[in-house]
């Protein structure tokens, strides 16, 4: 369990010299709003640090450890002279042995050390002694490196705590001749020259940011000059630049990359100064719009201040403004948003639209540590929410509106299938989270198997769609009075009394099981003010110091317009 703002412990192990990388990591973390302590292990001390009981790494208690190697260290002489091994099968056997030696270290790490391990793979060779025959023979040098990297990836796919730092891609982006300074390499076994360390450190933040709860969830986009060239209000739908041919193809491609992020769960929103009818017409009718109206979870097209619009989008989506990325071609608007919301990641979009995609690719902030099926559904679900909000405007009372939703929630005991999603929710839910206790998958798994706890998840459906798992409850039930350790819910479904329905179900069962009372707890954080009154609203008595007690169970009544299904939750032990 970790609290909201503790220092993240970042360790670095490498089989070559990485002096200075510790400072680069601290700088990159600081720039991302993360406080860190960094531990750089001694040169080529990987085995000792992982295996010895009293190593610096062990006493450092890392939250995340980066491990780097290269072809020379991982494959030895074969990295230079692979054809000293005569047959393809000799070479394959050799690589499998070396890959096992490397993955054995990773496995030992799992046994010996806490936290995540981010293991670097090997950059692809840019030279082979075989020359043009490299492409003609079996188990050539690039095949050997590929096999080594695949073995590492196979381990990462099996082990939840192991991730891959794609050094092969890093070398592809920057180039071997830029990264390796040959005199420095021979003098000091410096594989990444000092000037490139800040770039690598920035890429490492892709792993550190989600661990520190700093992931971004939504991209707020300007329209004119950003999603298309020109000004829709002046140039008209035929005049704006957006096409599969130049000059509109850079904008078209930018939209394709945004669509790909949207499909993996990053939300998109529009923030544009325009006449809404002009801009919406372009979004709906322009033949080269990759992003459709349904791609956007919130649309603000008007003549208001753009910072005000960002606030409206945050309210619309029930998301913290600190989870936003802002993309606008107008430096003035960027400055306006930056000064109003320093917590927003404002992208310094290059002047040339041909460079927009690169600017987008450089953002490492959208990562999650687990990618669940629900991530792929998320964007869709927010679009449902936008339609639900539209319905809100069309019915007379809130009660009628909620009734019209035909809500159904299903409460279930955690199982193998739901544990990853439950852990993910405990780590990334900030606003509707009564206690903000963060748990790893392992911790959730231990609790759900103990008779002292019940770990429950709940999912919701309504007339507009299936939201999947949207909340978690963990109750301590081994005492006469039950205590709610964790109660959290996704912001997508706030404002529908789902929380009350869940509490009523808990209260009903506490009564049936003979618990004398049900205790709730509220631990304030900078982000969770919205659930401050939850327990009082649900009929609990305020005991002071963030403790709430319910013994008259009738005071916590079910919600009439929410159907609750709870298959076998309460009679398992």
């Amino acid at each position, binding site marked *: 369990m970790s609290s909201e703002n503790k220092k993240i412990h970042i360790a670095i192990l490498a089989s070559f*010299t990485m002096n*200075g990388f510790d400072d680069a990591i601290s700088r990159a973390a600081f720039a991302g709003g993360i406080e860190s302590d960094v531990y750089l292990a001694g040169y080529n001390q990987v085995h000792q640090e992982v295996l010895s009981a009293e190593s610096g790494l062990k006493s450092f208690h890392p939250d995340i450890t980066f491990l780097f190697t290269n072809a020379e260290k991982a494959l030895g002489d074969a990295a230079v002279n692979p054809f000293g091994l005569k047959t393809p099968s000799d070479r394959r056997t050799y690589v499998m042995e070396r890959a096992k030696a490397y993955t054995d270290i990773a496995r030992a790490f799992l046994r010996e050390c806490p936290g995540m391990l981010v293991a670097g793979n090997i950059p692809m060779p840019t030279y082979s002694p075989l020359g043009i025959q490299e492409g003609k023979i079996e188990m050539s040098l690039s095949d050997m490196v590929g096999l080594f990297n695949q073995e590492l990836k196979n381990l990462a796919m099996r082990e939840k705590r192991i991730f891959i730092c794609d050094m092969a891609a890093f070398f592809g982006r920057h180039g071997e001749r830029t990264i390796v*300074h*040959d*005199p*420095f390499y*021979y*003098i*000091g076994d410096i594989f990444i020259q*000092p000037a490139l360390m800040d770039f690598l450190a920035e890429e490492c933040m892709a792993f550190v940011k989600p661990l520190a709860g700093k992931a971004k969830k939504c991209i707020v986009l300007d329209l004119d000059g950003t999603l298309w060239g020109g000004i829709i209000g002046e140039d008209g739908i035929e005049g704006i630049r957006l096409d599969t041919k130049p000059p509109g193809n850079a904008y078209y491609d930018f939209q394709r990359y945004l669509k790909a992020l949207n499909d993996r769960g990053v939300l998109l929103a529009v923030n544009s100064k325009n006449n809404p009818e002009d801009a919406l017409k372009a979004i709906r009718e322009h033949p080269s719009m990759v992003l459709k109206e349904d791609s956007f979870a919130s649309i603000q097209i008007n003549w208001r201040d753009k910072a005000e619009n960002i606030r409206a989008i945050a309210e619309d989506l029930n998301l913290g403004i600190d989870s936003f990325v802002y993309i606008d071609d107008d430096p003035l608007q960027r400055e306006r948003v930056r000064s109003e919301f320093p917590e927003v990641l404002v992208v310094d979009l290059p002047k040339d639209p041909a460079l927009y995609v690169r600017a987008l690719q450089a953002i490492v902030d959208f990562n999650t540590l687990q990618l669940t099926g629900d991530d792929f559904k998320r964007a869709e679900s927010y679009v449902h929410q936008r339609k639900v909000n539209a319905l809100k405007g069309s019915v007379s009372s809130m009660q009628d509106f909620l009734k019209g939703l035909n809500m159904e929630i299903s409460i279930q005991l955690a199982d193998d299938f739901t544990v990853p999603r439950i852990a993910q929710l405990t780590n990334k839910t900030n606003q509707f989270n009564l206690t903000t206790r963060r748990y790893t998958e392992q911790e959730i798994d231990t609790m759900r198997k103990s008779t002292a706890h019940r770990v429950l998840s709940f999912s919701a459906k309504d007339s507009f769609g299936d939201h999947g798992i949207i909340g978690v409850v963990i109750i301590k039930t081994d005492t006469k009075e039950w205590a709610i350790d964790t109660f959290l819910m996704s912001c997508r479904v706030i404002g529908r009394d789902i929380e009350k329905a869940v509490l009523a179900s808990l209260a009903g069962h506490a009564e049936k099981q003979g618990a004398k009372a049900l205790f709730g707890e509220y631990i304030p954080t900078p982000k969770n003010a919205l659930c401050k009154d939850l327990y009082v609203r649900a009929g609990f008595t305020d005991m002071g110091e963030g403790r709430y007690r319910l013994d008259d169970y009738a005071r916590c009544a079910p919600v009439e317009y929410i159907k609750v299904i709870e298959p076998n939750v309460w009679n398992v032990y």
Partner: protein
Amino acid sequence: MERLLKVLEKILKVQPANVNDMTSPQNTPSWDSFNSILLADALEKEFKTKFTMDEILDVKNVGDIKRHLKNHGIKF
């Protein structure tokens, strides 16, 4: 000399007033083997040049740095 002193001050954290041709790893605790590399890196960037491995390994004091810069035709 000013540009060279600036680099030495930045990498080795030494007072420019205390630096002379005989300033060396022996009398400067912060001048370790890794800082020798950082120094070469910073000098390459400041003077837009590249040193060979032998030049870097040959440097035993500030006088040697000046000699190599001169060989590169650099005014420092």
